[in-house]
């Protein structure tokens, strides 16, 4: 059974349609990658899964039960934890307070600050982030460090489904590697991971399923055995547009344009693109 399953989900912001007819699922020990260009609706999709927004159409099921989350708290209670692109951290607060924010370790009436400091430091160390001082405001960390704080926080609090919104977008090669390794680790532990990215080279090695989004619509939904890295890359690189573009040029007529159109058509064939196909 899938941990999370979306069927025909859509979302309108007033009269703007940000998403429509999206299917997606993630099960235990699976990584589902969501790929798409800027503004494709990736963030909108995960905000629905995370309970920050409600979907306007379609169904959203968790463990086979239909849900309508009114707040991220409710999603969290179902074990769905999210690391946002605009990083859910409070910049002026110390790292350890951010790490435990919303799930503080209580002790009597107060909280166990010593435990929380120690744990935050240790958990981050386990992720390869050796912080100078967990007392420093999290706003002073680098983007990669902040990302890792947010991810290790979600993993530490026993998420069943981990949603990562472009965790590698702002990272260097080495730190991207750390994050990808962490995704695989999470999968090994039995978590379902929804990994949002626009980099097919990051998605392909770790993903089990791939959802491609474009302007709020599904451009294709593949299992790993149905698509190769090159096809994925081609789709992402706007291969579908190559074909469109060649038609446009063709219609324009003229020798040079026709030749160019032919070239483009050829190129898109070589890349093996079948736009709009679904499994």
């Amino acid at each position, binding site marked *: 059974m899938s941990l999370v399953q979306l069927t025909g989900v859509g979302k309108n912001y007033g009269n703007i349609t940000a998403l429509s007819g999206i299917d997606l699922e993630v099960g235990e020990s699976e990584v589902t990658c969501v790929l798409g260009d800027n503004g494709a609706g990736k963030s909108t999709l995960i905000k629905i899964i995370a309970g920050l927004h409600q979907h306007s159409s379609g169904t959203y099921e968790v463990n086979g039960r239909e849900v309508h989350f009114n707040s991220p708290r409710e999603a969290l209670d179902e074990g769905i934890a999210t690391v946002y692109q605009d990083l859910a951290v409070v*910049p002026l607060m110390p790292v350890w307070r951010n790490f435990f924010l919303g799930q503080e370790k209580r002790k009597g009436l107060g909280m166990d600050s010593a435990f929380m400091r120690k744990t935050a430091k240790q958990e981050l160390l386990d992720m390869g982030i050796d912080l100078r001082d967990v007392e420093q405001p999290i706003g002073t960390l680098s983007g990669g460090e902040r990302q890792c704080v947010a991810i290790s926080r979600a993993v530490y609090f026993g998420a069943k489904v981990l949603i990562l919104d472009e965790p590698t977008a702002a990272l260097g090669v080495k730190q991207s590697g750390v994050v990808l390794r962490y995704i695989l680790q999470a999968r090994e532990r039995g978590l379902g991971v929804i990994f949002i990215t626009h980099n097919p080279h990051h998605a392909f090695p770790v993903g089990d399923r791939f959802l491609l989004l474009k302007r709020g619509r599904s451009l294709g939904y593949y299992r790993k055995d149905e698509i190769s890295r090159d096809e994925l890359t081609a789709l992402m690189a706007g291969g579908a547009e190559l074909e469109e573009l060649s038609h446009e040029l063709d219609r324009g007529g003229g020798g040079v344009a026709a030749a160019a159109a032919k070239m483009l058509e050829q190129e898109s064939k070589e890349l093996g693109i079948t736009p709009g196909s679904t499994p």
Partner: protein
Amino acid sequence: MTATLTAPPARGDERLARQSAFSRLAGRPEIGALVGAVVIFILFFVVAPPFREAPSIATVLYQSSLYGIPAVGVALLMIGGEFDLSAGVAVISSSLVASMTAYQLSVNVWVGVLVSLVVALAIGLLNGYLLVRTKLPSFLVTLATFFMLTGLNLALTKLISGGVATKDISDIDGFASAQAIFAQSFDVGGVSLRITLLWWIVFVAIATWVLLKTHLGNWIFAVGGADASARAVGVPVKKVKIGLFMTVSFLCWFTGMHILFSFNTVQSGQGPGNEFLYIIAAVVGGCLLTGGYGSAVGAAIGAFIFGMTEQGIVLAGWEADWFKFFLGAMLLGATLLNVYVRRRAETRK
């Protein structure tokens, strides 16, 4: 002498430049206010000889506590990202409700005190609820309640008591015990101190503990610092904000009870203007107007600065009007300092 000359082995991270006690202190929100308080104390100590006497200090502390108690709530609220313009009038509303309930219904004053508490908390709840419901800025919401309460205070007092002040309630049952709680004086080494000073210390201590040592404190800093982020990780942002408004109301109610039981009657026109004193005390004490940063101790020092200045100006024989000018100047100075502190806190390496 056996002082060891070798430094203790370096502990922790070598990248973390060892911070002296001084630079740690300099990173605290209230440090600017503390320096200001010392300077002002020395100033009046020098220019106003009567300021040096114990009874004057007692008066200063008393005056400070009257600003300081509501300022504790206002500081918490400001750290939580909001502010309350109705706090000054709400103090008097509380006194009026307690007084008129007890007098008009001829019941024990404690009934009036409790009815007043319920009304006060309802005002806080209303402020908070309107804020989270409408998503309007707190400036607008509490400006509206400020005017409504100002009008109600005057109109209802005139309607019920037939004047601008309430009737004397000092001979009603329960007055003595209520006075003992809210308004008694006691002697320490021949100097008469007011009980509000003790309450002030208690409230500051509780607020400091909540802010630094409890999950609620964590949530208050978070909703003020980045409320969308706080919501995303599961902090009940709306409840925290409503709770903060109700905390302000509670402390205003407490101050209102003090006023009632030390003067026995209440002037219905009092109150407006004091909300700014509370807000300025919090800002001078290092709270960021934009939320997410500050301390209760800072607000206490801010209130102490006002108490000192208000009395000091009188004792130095200056024109009392200078107090207003001073208020503005302090606020300006504190705001500039805040900007600097925030930048420092965000880029501390």
